[in-house]
């Protein structure tokens, strides 16, 4: 089919329809990449003026202006939860509403950096005190409106550029707050308590998702990293018992509003694909090619679930040459783009990827006709 704009192209790909070419996706770009982009390429004068006027020049890692200027078809906007403060935390950390500790720092080269420090709710008592403080707390009422207003501007003014919107998934909310050790302990000795934490977290996320879908986004994408390079972060039995049912409720809310649901999940997650299909998830994003058997996933699940990401952001885009990137991405598009269901892009936030390699990646995605092959 000949998509008339970027949004149509993305939606068609998620519907496994053939498109003029695969749509390209940018998860985000951190401070380092933004600096490199400004130094090596820079914005066009008139374009930047328009982006600024439309409120699209933002703080990394989300920056629609950057995605537009590079020529992507869609990107991601995940809403942060409320931050709290507890005096005396190490490193001047702030607490997110799930109990995860985050710290702002500045790298030696002067680049800002925000990072996860560790879990704060490391005992049952701390979790219960947290609840007594009224946490987790709901999203601020005014949080969503300005960002979702951007969605309208992007769709109307920028050739249907699509912003995938979302919130953190159930696993990240849980693990950031209580940590792996507590998860393992409660899973074995006190599963009811673990269910209760998940349920309380979900109440907040469900309310947030309901507010988001009121703005009728075409696609919702939630971030929930389940994998390490070698496999899942928790065993699949526990994932199915504790995480899957809540994830299914995310999907129900989003599908109930007529939007598509995509999950961003880093690591080697092939083991979960049958579950993703069962839940009706429309697409899986990240899918590092060095640790996932992508041709197999395409062959086995490609008719039911779309593959997003797949371009190695920490190896190929950092260490490769533009020619290597074009060749590698071209091959991927041929294999994974057959019959649609493919939205390629860097597998994670761009950090130290070379700008010229990102440009080469986009040339390979946009210049190929493999997506038409059927």
């Amino acid at each position, binding site marked *: 089919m000949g998509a008339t704009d970027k949004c149509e192209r993305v939606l068609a790909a998620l519907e496994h329809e053939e498109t003029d070419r695969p749509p390209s996706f940018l998860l985000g770009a951190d*401070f380092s990449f*933004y*600096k490199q982009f*400004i*130094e090596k*390429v*820079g*914005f*066009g*004068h008139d374009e*930047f*003026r328009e982006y*600024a*006027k439309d409120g699209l*020049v*933002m*703080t*990394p890692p989300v920056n629609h202006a950057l995605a537009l200027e590079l020529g992507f078809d869609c990107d991601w906007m995940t809403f942060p939860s*409320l*931050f*709290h*403060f507890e*005096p005396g935390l190490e*490193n*001047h950390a*702030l607490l997110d509403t799930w109990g995860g500790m985050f*710290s*702002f*720092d*500045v*790298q*030696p*080269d*002067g*680049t*800002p950096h*925000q990072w996860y420090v560790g879990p704060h709710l490391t005992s049952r008592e701390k979790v219960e005190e947290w609840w007594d403080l009224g946490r987790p707390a709901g999203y*601020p*009422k*005014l*949080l969503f409106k300005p960002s979702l207003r951007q969605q309208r501007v992007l769709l109307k003014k920028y050739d249907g550029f699509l912003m995938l919107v979302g919130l953190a998934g159930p696993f990240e909310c849980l693990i950031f707050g209580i940590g792996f050790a507590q998860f393992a302990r409660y899973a074995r000795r006190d599963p009811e308590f673990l269910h209760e934490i998940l349920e309380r977290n979900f109440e907040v996320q469900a309310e947030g998702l309901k507010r988001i879908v009121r703005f009728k986004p075409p696609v919702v994408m939630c971030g929930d990293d389940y994998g390490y390079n070698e496999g899942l972060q928790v065993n699949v039995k526990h994932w199915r018992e504790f995480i899957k049912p809540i994830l299914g409720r995310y999907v129900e809310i989003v599908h109930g509003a007529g939007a598509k649901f995509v999950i961003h999940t880093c690591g080697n997650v092939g083991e979960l694909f049958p579950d993703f299909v069962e839940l009706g998830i429309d697409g899986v994003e990240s899918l590092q090619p060095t640790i996932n058997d992508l041709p197999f996933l395409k062959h086995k699940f490609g008719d039911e679930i779309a593959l997003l990401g797949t371009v190695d952001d920490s190896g190929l885009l950092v260490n490769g040459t533009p020619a290597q990137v074009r060749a590698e991405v071209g091959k991927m598009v041929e294999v994974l783009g057959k019959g649609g269901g493919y939205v390629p892009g860097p597998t994670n936030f761009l950090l130290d990827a070379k700008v010229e390699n990102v440009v080469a990646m986009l040339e390979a995605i946009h210049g190929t006709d493999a997506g038409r092959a059927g």
Partner: protein
Amino acid sequence: MVEQVERVENGGTSAAAGVAGLKGVAAIAYTFFWPYKIDGRLRASMKGVELTIVVDLIDFPPAAVVEIRDGDFSVVVVEDPARLPRKPDISISGKLQDLIRVMEGVGKALKVLLSRKVKIKGKRKALVLAKLFRATEFELPGGGSDG
């Protein structure tokens, strides 16, 4: 006595040693202004403007002083903002939690401001700063290109 813990010129590698030590409010302020500096919005909309901004959160010390000078900025950490050599143009004080509420528009942000849980001195100058955040009419610095 004003104890200047670190003085940090923004961006670039020349100030690497000082920058790396920033924490807390100073790091948050630095993070906030950095993209505006890097992509030229600060220089474009703050040309000729000199502003000294103190952010003093009683539950999240030490305080930070942000200095904007003709499109550039620096961040200074101070132990006692009341004893700065000269009066700041804008002073923001209160508790971090209340400031977050104001910035995120939680509940009734106006109520928080009216109750003076978060105090902003130098509101007229703050309007100059607000220009930065709605910067649309400006010229890009030399680095801008059509590519």
